């Protein structure tokens, strides 16, 4: 069987989560493979010549029984904007599964999962499948305002939830790196995982490196193909320029030249 596929999925749900994030659930025509948290799909967005390339989105949820997968789509540019206008019943082509996922933590380890903006998606997926006791999982989720936070109450069963907003409208005021769970308690964790804006991940990586804590981040470099042939999404690493799509998107911070 082929390792990767291109298939037409059917949109079974497209609902706004808040002012900028949408939940898009897609039903697969073929039995879905097992996805690792951190892996992504490359989505074809139809309807305008301005959007020529696919857009990558990390997996938020997979329901193997229903054969569906869900994405959190945050409006960032013309591609994501157009995708949020897709209607239930419409067809959407996906290339999948792409990239490498996060290193799954070992039993008994304490982990801190940090998601910023739409970067919460793979963190919630990781929390769900980590196999850890909820008390060993801490989820730190950041956004600009309370309106931009996705409702994640149901993730309370997988770990302790912590929030930060830049304006203080939910949880701690400031960036995720200013939250006490990160600022004061980083040494408590065996592993730190992060996905979100580049500046956020760089700030986290800096602290994790200083504290000598295992840390993986998921990068979002611009991609054309998503499967390692165009060499556009490269990230300079200690092993040379690597493709974020096939060598990542998850990287150990010790590999990066950050």
């Amino acid at each position, binding site marked *: 069987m082929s*390792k990767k596929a291109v298939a037409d999925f059917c949109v079974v749900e497209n609902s706004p989560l808040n002012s900028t994030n949408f939940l898009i659930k897609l039903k697969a025509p073929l039995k879905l493979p097992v996805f690792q948290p951190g892996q992504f799909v490359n989505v*074809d967005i139809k309807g305008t010549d301005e959007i020529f390339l696919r857009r990558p989105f990390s997996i938020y949820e997979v329901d193997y029984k229903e054969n569906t997968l869900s994405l959190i789509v945050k409006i960032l540019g013309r591609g994501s904007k157009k995708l949020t206008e897709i209607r239930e019943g419409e067809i959407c082509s996906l290339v999948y599964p792409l990239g490498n996922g996060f290193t799954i933590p070992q039993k008994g380890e304490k982990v801190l999962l940090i998601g910023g903006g739409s970067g919460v998606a793979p963190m919630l997926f990781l929390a769900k499948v980590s196999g850890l006791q909820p008390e060993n999982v801490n989820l730190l989720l950041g956004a600009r305002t309370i309106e931009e936070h996705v409702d994640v109450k149901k993730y309370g069963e997988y770990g302790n939830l912590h929030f930060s907003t830049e304006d203080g409208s939910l949880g701690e005021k400031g960036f995720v790196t200013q939250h006490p769970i990160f600022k004061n308690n980083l040494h408590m964790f065996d592993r730190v995982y992060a996905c979100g804006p580049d500046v956020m991940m760089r700030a986290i990586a800096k602290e994790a490196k200083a504290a000598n804590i295992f840390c993986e981040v998921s990068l979002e470099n611009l991609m*054309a193909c998503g499967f390692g042939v*165009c*060499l556009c999404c490269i990230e300079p690493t200690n092993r040379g320029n690597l493709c974020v799509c096939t060598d990542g998107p998850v990287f150990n911070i010790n590999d990066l030249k950050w």
Partner: protein
Amino acid sequence: MVDLTVKIHNIEFKNPVMTASGTSGFAEELMDFYDVSQLGALFLKGTTLKNRDGNDYPRMAETASGMLNAVGLQNKGIDYFIENIYPRIKNYNTPLIVNVNGSTVEEYIEVTEKVNELDRIPAIELNISCPNVKEGGMAFGVSCVGAEVVTKAVREVYDKTLIVKLSPNVTDITEIAKAVEAQGADSVSLVNTFLAMAIDAEKRTPLLSTITGGLSGPAIKPIALRMVWQVYNAVKIPVIGMGGIMNATDAIEFMLAGATAIQVGTAIFKDPFIPVQIIEGIKEYLERHNLKSAKDLIGALQL
């Protein structure tokens, strides 16, 4: 049963659908999706004498009906290819063609000599048209003298099929095509990307680290088609056409304009199955038009 085979120099290809260099890696990446032996040929990622890191990020910008790239020939060098990649891919049951690059004529010669030793590589594509490197590349391909010098030098050390990849960034592409034909090229492939630019108006910055890059995708198709037509009428050697081919109809148009075979490039980024779908589409077209052979399409434009 229609005959899809086409011939370039002394190689018979099972069909005219090939993948363009730089859009299908070293074939292994496509094997994750399907068996590449279905394809007419694969043109492998551009290879130089020594390791090249390529240009800085960002190297890509989406534009209307296409994209710019400024990868800058990132590759690990010909020795790495021979030692590590070639042994893994050499038994794929379709011709694998190495895309040869250099900053100097001597480098082109040295890479070619090394490729010449590889039994399973029946041809090279001499890239004198990469717009994204400071030295060599397109510098050779935009003048008849430059194109002649490289082609002649490589021809002297290479006895298998020599394909020269032409740049569209010239006043008259037929002059370059005729020049390389005169120096012994067995075929020409065209077109490489168009030198182009994209700007972020809000930030007032270029979208590429290199400021300019190469435009590809459906945006360039009509110009590429015109150039294939012009070159087909100017030379006797077979032409391999490419430039924005997205489906079988596009591919057939290139063949009608004179291409013996076609390369699918940027379309692969959208959907790696497009080359396979194009093969099926050509077959269906031939049957529908009661044609027996793909060869019947070559230059069959009715005027």
